[in-house]
């Protein structure tokens, strides 16, 4: 398949996962707020079913939406044109990665229908819960399917990453020097670079867990366990903490993989509509790579209360706090780029600003969770859920919408309706905040994650848990509205795709290579693209601009 077709195919995969993942989250929310509500055609949601929803929601969203869509979806669609290449380095590897991901998605979607149902151990799959089949329903065949699915996913990701890295390193056109690469490319580059070691380690961990389950090894199992009244012995005196180390060595970079492409795109889109250069452009390149680099060294902050040495906690606290500095540098650059620019507030620009807002709001709770003494209270509460849903999930999804609205003229030769787009934006950001801000409050009040039910529990624990119920209902209603707020987007897609192709070739006065007239030409006789200047060469008053593909002698006039 051509890389453009593959890009669409990746996005289709993510869209399917996004629709399923969203539905699952709404079922979770409905059950939490109204625990007796029977799901039509099913009946009340049982605790193990709730945990199945948790596991599938996390797996679908993190792997199949936030990894595939920004990185492999838009990466395959846009990246080659953005670096002035008509192809990707390894098209067959990219195709193979897509088919593996399709198989992976099918396997994980089949898991609820096997005996015992889907795995209930969450997307982090901590052993021994994930290692011993008798530890819960879904921990037998359902867990094996989850392992198989994520193993295929890891393999596919490594393949796609090799393709993307090689493309960026080897296929840049004449003149596309490293310091002229749009920050979007730097985002894809850093994310691909991170995904190689992290998914390779995850794959290894999955294989070890498979061995523990079926080949009587004991990598993650201590010498004796008493599960369900049955004593099991492991030949080696292993430790579940080894899994936590390996998993979070993957898991933390994974959240940067999800959000780095969006960060790069936001920088470029803000500069585009502010009609000026990205503020501190070269520093931003360094900062992105630095975020990726430090991102590999912070996994221990997921394990402050897991049983590590307290000294390790102190060390991981410092590396985790340190990452706030490059992240702040990004935000400062975004603020300085739009400052006094009288930027055009198109829908894409609004989604870019929405991303900035969510990144700030979600990011500011990061340093709080990086302090082990505070984690001793906040760990695994809804405060954490609020944190990562704002900075990773919501910012990630805003990045995807931003990419869709911004690149739609290239993707579909049409521009999405601005009026519907703005309605979509304002409803989405309002209900995103209305859903996730109150989770900070329930988390501070002590609500733990993964609780299938907050009512009907006796004693002081029951009092503490049920005290959050009024807010639970508010959050659920907001989440439903957040889902409904996506209807204008789908109407917009429907209306726009039915209208005749009209778009001007460069409606946003963009400067990067993918907007060059022949960037997506399939004609082998078309002239090879050449890059002449750095991106975002706008004049000081913003009246004129110089696209990257234009030779230096003739400045372009805006339409």
């Amino acid at each position, binding site marked *: 398949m051509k890389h453009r077709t593959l890009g669409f195919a990746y996005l289709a995969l993510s869209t399917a996962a996004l629709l399923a993942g969203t539905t699952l989250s709404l079922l979770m929310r409905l059950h939490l707020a109204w625990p007796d509500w029977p799901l039509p055609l099913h009946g009340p949601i049982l*605790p193990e079913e709730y945990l199945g929803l948790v596991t599938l929601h996390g797996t679908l969203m993190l792997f199949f939406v936030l990894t595939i869509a920004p990185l492999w979806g838009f990466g395959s669609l846009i990246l080659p044109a953005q670096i002035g290449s008509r192809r990707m380095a390894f098209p067959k590897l990219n195709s193979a990665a897509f088919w593996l991901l399709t198989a992976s998605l099918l396997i994980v979607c089949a898991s609820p229908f096997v005996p015992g149902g889907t795995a209930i151990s969450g997307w982090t799959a901590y*052993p*021994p*819960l994930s290692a011993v089949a008798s*530890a*819960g329903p879904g921990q037998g065949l359902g867990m094996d399917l989850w392992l198989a699915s994520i193993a295929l996913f890891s393999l596919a990701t490594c393949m796609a990453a090799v393709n993307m890295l090689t493309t960026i390193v080897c296929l840049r056109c004449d003149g596309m020097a490293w310091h002229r690469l749009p920050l979007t490319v730097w985002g894809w580059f850093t994310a691909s670079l991170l995904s190689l070691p992290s998914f390779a380690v995850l794959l290894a961990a999955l294989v070890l867990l498979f061995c523990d389950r079926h080949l009587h090894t004991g990598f993650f199992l201590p010498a004796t*366990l*008493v*599960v*369900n*009244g049955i*004593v099991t012995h492991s030949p080696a*005196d*292993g*430790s579940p*903490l080894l899994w936590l180390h390996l998993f979070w060595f993957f898991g933390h970079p994974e959240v940067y993989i999800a959000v780095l492409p969006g960060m790069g795109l936001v920088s470029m889109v803000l500069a585009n509509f502010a009609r000026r250069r990205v*503020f*501190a452009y070269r*520093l931003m390149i360094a900062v992105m790579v630095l975020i990726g680099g430090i991102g590999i060294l912070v996994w221990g902050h997921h394990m402050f*209360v897991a*049983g590590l040495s307290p000294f390790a906690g*102190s060390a991981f*606290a410092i590396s985790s*706090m340190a990452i706030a*500095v490059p992240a*702040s540098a990004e935000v*400062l*650059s975004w603020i*300085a780029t*739009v*400052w006094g*620019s*009288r930027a055009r*507030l198109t829908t894409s620009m609004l989604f870019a*600003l929405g991303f*900035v807002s969510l990144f700030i*709001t979600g990011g*500011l709770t990061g340093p*709080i969770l990086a*302090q*082990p*003494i505070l*984690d*001793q209270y*906040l760990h695994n*509460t809804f405060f954490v859920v609020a944190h990562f849903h704002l900075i990773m999930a919501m910012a990630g999804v805003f990045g995807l919408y931003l990419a869709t609205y911004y690149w739609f003229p290239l993707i579909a030769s049409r521009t999405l309706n601005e009026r519907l787009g703005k309605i979509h934006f304002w409803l989405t950001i309002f209900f995103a905040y209305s859903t996730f801000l109150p989770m900070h*409050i329930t988390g*501070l009040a*002590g609500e733990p994650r993964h609780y*299938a*039910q907050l009512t009907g*529990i006796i*004693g*002081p*624990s*029951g009092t*503490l*848990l049920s005290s959050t119920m009024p807010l639970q209902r508010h959050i659920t209603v907001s989440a439903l509205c957040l889902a409904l707020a996506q209807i204008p987007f789908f109407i917009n897609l429907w209306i726009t795709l039915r209208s005749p192709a009209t778009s001007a070739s460069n409606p946003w006065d963009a400067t990067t290579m993918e907007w060059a007239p022949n960037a997506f030409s399939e004609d082998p006789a078309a002239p090879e693209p050449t890059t002449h200047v750095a991106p975002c060469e706008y004049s*000081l*008053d913003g009246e004129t601009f110089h696209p990257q593909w234009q030779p230096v002698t003739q400045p372009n006039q805006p339409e």
Partner: protein
Amino acid sequence: MTHFFQSHGFLVASIWPLPTDAAAHGPALDAQLLLNLWIGLALLALAHILVIVGLAKRRTHTPPRRQALIEFLPLAALAILFAFLATRAEALWETARYTGPSRSALQVEVVGMQFAWYFRYPGPDATFGVAKPELVAPGEGNPVGIDPTDPHSADDFVSSQLVLPAGREVDLRLHSQDVIHGFSVPQMRLKQNAVPGQDIHIHFTPTIPGDYAILCTQLCGLGHYRMTATLRVLPEAAFEVWLTQHSKSGAR
């Protein structure tokens, strides 16, 4: 600033719905948390104001020359702020975790299993008897697997409620029989996972008598949500009475 937060704790805390704080280390932890929350809220407001003002402002035609001033000065200020918060947090963490409990601390073993917590007291000999996985039998009143042939076991007793005296340090030994559980007492500002194959110690001092929530905060299976228990903090004298009663019945 610490002083301000501690002396005006109630006023400042009122918009943040933290539950009762009944542990000796709690007020300092709360002060650090509230300081962080207020700083976060202020930075949140500041950043949004800057974005909105920046968008509303008339277009400036001069290039932003003083990159150092715009980028590095705020960055340096933020870095100092983060370093300040990290230093304070590390100091609190060091106090809480770097050293073990005092030798006079009350010892209790916390055992987690799907889906219950059990609390074993060592009795007058102050020594836990040997526990064996093969002997675990919750239905027969031996959920921890105490080996009756060990002389130290004779006075051990197991409770489904964690009962502690106010004002005395306690040394908890966390242990799990099956999967990872999270031992969490929100009102004691305490959380530590119990990991199978490992004994993990954690120490703290409850200060205010009362009944408090004990939750499991690490996903442990289908009954995770109902793996709760009660911590009852009693005045010293009442605790002694409770201890005597249970030691007798346990040693029976």
